[in-house]
């Protein structure tokens, strides 16, 4: 399926459920990792105009930490974690004793490595749940990370998915640790060519 605009409501609901199951597992992994209670916003599966994505994150120039991983397997896709500055700093201070970072632009090698590992764990947990559901192994690539403008990351991630259509399918969810305002946005973008197989595997072709 190269054209995501033909997805039906039932198929989108099923994909939202995919987001639910994946991010539920990722949320428990994060909760264990941080030893705190993590709440999850209700995931969405939406067909979006690519040019509207940066607005969801507070505009294209908003500074965020981005962790990008490829989904490898019979069903392939892209996984993008966007972590606002405040949350990134909080995570680093929680995970690295004595960490005094005040601007993610100045991360040390240890700090970068720690954030990539957060990405690795979250993507791994998400895809693990999805592999079980779809009965096909889905693995994540090594994570790549940057701290920059949200718009710049999104154009790099979605550009070649938009050759045919101006729209992309995005499964999105956020984690919130209510008391401390910890926020992580997860985006899963199935490759258009694997979408039919994913729908088959979850039984909504």
């Amino acid at each position, binding site marked *: 399926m190269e054209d995501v605009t033909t997805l039906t409501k039932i198929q989108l609901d099923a994909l939202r459920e995919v987001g639910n199951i994946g991010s539920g597992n990722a949320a428990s992994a994060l909760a264990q990792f941080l030893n705190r209670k993590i709440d999850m916003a209700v995931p969405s599966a939406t067909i979006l105009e*690519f*040019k509207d994505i940066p607005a969801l994150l507070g505009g294209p120039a908003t500074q965020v930490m981005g962790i990008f991983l490829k989904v490898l397997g019979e069903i392939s896709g892209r996984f993008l974690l966007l972590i606002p500055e405040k949350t990134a700093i909080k995570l680093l201070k929680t995970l690295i004793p004595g960490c005094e970072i005040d601007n993610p*632009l100045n991360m040390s090698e240890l700090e970068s490595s720690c954030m990539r590992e957060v990405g690795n764990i979250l993507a791994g947990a998400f895809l693990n749940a999805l592999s079980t559901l779809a009965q096909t192994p889905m693995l994540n*690539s*090594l994570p790549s*990370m940057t701290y920059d403008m949200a718009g*710049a990351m*999104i154009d*790099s991630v979605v550009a070649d998915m938009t050759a*045919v259509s101006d729209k992309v399918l995005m499964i999105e969810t956020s984690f919130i640790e209510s008391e401390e305002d910890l926020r992580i946005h997860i985006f899963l973008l199935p490759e258009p060519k694997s979408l039919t197989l994913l729908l088959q595997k979850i039984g909504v072709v």
Partner: protein
Amino acid sequence: MSVVIPVGMGELKVARSPETLAVYGIGSCVIVSLYDTKSRVGGIAHIMLPDSSGIDKERLNPNKFADTAIPALYNAIKAEDGVFKANLHAKIVGGSEMFPPTEDFENTIGRDNTVAVKKALKKMGFPIVAEDTGGKRGRSIEFDLETGLVRLSILGEEMREL
């Protein structure tokens, strides 16, 4: 402050002095500005991909691809009063590789876009008078039609003019 007109991904816009065209959060995309120094008319194409070949013509958005967006940008600008091809010059910005390559992947779209944009500009005969491309950082620009200058911002760096 003059009117600032934002140009999103896959969009193409033309404006004239004293307006300003702006693009925020440029990653692997390449921004091409064409400017007529005499009439102070200019335009921007926010290009996402290098090549439109193989794409169904009926569904093609020409503004997305280097090979089709640059002719489209020229057509849009020359429709304005007082524009002459000989007065036009180009500036190009963007084409970075935001996510460093890992063992499993490498993203060459930024590089491919830059190469394709240069080729398309050469084909049309527009000189590139300024360029800031490649690298690993995102960029934002404001293209001031009054002066023809492009103000370039990169996170953690001083603002520069091209």
